[in-house]
């Protein structure tokens, strides 16, 4: 019996010939990651160990992205804790305001995470990096502290689920729609403790950005990791970015899957997930006409250049409805700069959008666009839990950048083709 790509990466990093689902394995870590919310607690725990160094100062990544630029004194104190730690322990990859981006946009862009890697991050959306063919999963601060100390972490080898997307995508459908559709079919715990492997013609046709969006939301189905087997697109993306050698893995043809789900990509409309769970996804046509108070385009799910290009393509020469606030947040400094060079930022500002420096901001109800009670937002983010973007009596709808941009123009949830054909 062969192994899946996830099993192969875990076996390799546990120095084992083979592993099987359910086994507990101790793996070497190529990278450990924490942010301004989880790092302070990890630092606190790490200091209890009384160590003079982390396992490898080049392999610890600290990104100040959630409440930055510091939204209040307490957030400033938290960042200070991390900054001091980074200096004291010589952490090479410390990203503060002016250099930082939303972590899951930043790490792939900077070539810090690579195909075949095994890594943990104290952030649930660490599963994003599976799009490059890495095993990446979210942990808490204590696991992270142990990871910084030992460069190891234990895992239970997950069972793998395979998702095959046949055929071709319809216009205006991207990675976000595929993943919302998938979570709508299997539910928010449909992949609990498991690996979600995405393959098929439509995945091959997706850009690396679109795949990052899909793997990002694997955790919203409860998965341990999402993964896309590397192809030429992956290697082309990594070329010129990788800061160290890497070894990509491929699953065996006779690998075992606990379930195989096959979807016809051509049947999938742009999706919208209704409050208050990502599994409440429906075709945009069923959400048409819902009035919204705020549109947010950004986050680790859809804050990449491709997303901004799609949104700007729709907003170009148009105005956002004056009934709502449109907020656009490029994911990293590099994305921000490139969007500026391409004139995308100008398009957004002319359309009446507020364009922000990179930050998680409103995605987690942090700052930069908090909702009042009774308000509704349409966001390209990944969670629409109660109170996620502000008041516990507010509501969040999730969608991709095309639906978000189109809806910003009309003031209610709208299929992009409605706006573009006008």
């Amino acid at each position, binding site marked *: 019996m062969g192994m899946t790509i996830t099993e192969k990466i875990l076996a390799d990093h546990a120095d084992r010939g083979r592993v099987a689902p359910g086994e*507990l394995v101790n793996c070497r870590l190529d990278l450990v990651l924490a942010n301004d*919310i*989880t790092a*302070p*607690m990890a630092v*606190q*725990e790490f200091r*209890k*160990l009384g*160590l003079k160094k982390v396992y490898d100062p080049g392999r610890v990544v600290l990104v100040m992205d*959630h*409440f930055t630029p510091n*939204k*209040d004194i*307490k*957030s400033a104190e*938290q960042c200070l804790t991390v900054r001091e730690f980074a200096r004291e322990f010589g952490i090479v990859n410390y990203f503060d305001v002016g250099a930082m981006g939303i972590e899951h946009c930043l790490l792939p862009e900077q070539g810090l995470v690579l195909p075949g890697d095994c890594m943990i*991050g*104290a*952030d*649930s959306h*660490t599963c994003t990096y599976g799009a490059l063919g890495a095993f990446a999963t*979210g*942990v*808490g*601060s*204590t*696991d992270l*502290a*142990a990871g910084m*100390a*030992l460069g190891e972490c*234990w895992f239970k080898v997950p069972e793998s689920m395979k998702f095959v997307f046949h055929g071709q995508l319809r216009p205006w459908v991207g990675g976000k729609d595929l993943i919302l559709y998938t979570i709508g079919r299997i539910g*928010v*715990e449909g992949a*609990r*403790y498991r690996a979600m492997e995405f393959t098929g013609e439509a995945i091959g046709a997706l850009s690396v950005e679109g795949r990052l969006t899909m793997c990002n939301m694997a955790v919203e189905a*409860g998965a*341990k990791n999402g993964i896309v087997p590397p192809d030429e697109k992956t290697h082309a993306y990594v070329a010129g970015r990788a800061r160290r050698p890497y070894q990509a893995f491929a699953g065996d043809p006779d690998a075992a899957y606990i379930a195989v789900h096959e979807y016809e990509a051509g049947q999938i409309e742009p999706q919208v997930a209704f409050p208050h*769970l990502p599994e409440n996804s429906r075709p945009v046509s069923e959400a048409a006409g819902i009035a919204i108070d705020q549109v947010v385009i950004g986050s680790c799910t859809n804050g990449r250049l491709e997303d901004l290009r799609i949104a700007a393509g729709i907003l170009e020469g148009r105005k956002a409805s004056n009934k709502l606030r449109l907020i656009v947040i490029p994911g990293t400094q590099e994305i921000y700069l490139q969007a500026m060079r391409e004139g995308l930022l100008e398009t957004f500002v002319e359309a009446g959008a507020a364009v922000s420096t990179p930050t998680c901001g409103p995605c*987690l*109800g*942090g700052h930069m666009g908090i909702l009042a009670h009774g308000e509704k937002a349409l966001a390209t983010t990944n*969670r629409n*839990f*109660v*109170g*996620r973007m502000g008041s*516990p009596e507010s509501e969040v709808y999730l969608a991709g950048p095309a639906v978000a941009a189109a809806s910003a123009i009309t003031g209610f949830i709208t299929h992009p083709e409605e706006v573009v054909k006008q």
Partner: protein
Amino acid sequence: MIITGRVWKFGNDVDTDLIIPARYLNTTDPLELASHCMEDADKSFAGRVQPGDIIVAGRNFGCGSSREHAPVAIKNAGVACVIAGSFARIFYRNAVNIGLPILECEAAAAALQSGDTAEIDLTAGSVKNLTSPGTYQAIPFPSFMQQIIEAGGLINYVKQRLA
């Protein structure tokens, strides 16, 4: 170890934003986190929960973010144990790592109601409802995690490894 306490019942998919909303994540102070525990699910919870009380919930408890602030808030609010039909995986790891006892037991999660008094034998993994009698058996921790718990949490376990 035997825990006897009053039950607070919640539903399915209790996410980390309900357990500790992100607006309070600008601190790591355990008692401050505890004072907002479960706030968006039940505003009165933090003020009324007593040391030794037990949270009982449905499936997928702790889904959402990786914030360890969630189990920390629950533990420091005085909650002695969480029983759920199932747990989201990061929450499960975090609870073990910080020493918050949790038990996965669908039957107990279904049977116990708010206000019931329950008795939990953590070592045996058994749950007894003392209010409307019934006994339930939970899935015990894998031996690997027993070691971490016996060491007093992951940090102590790592200390032993490094010693």
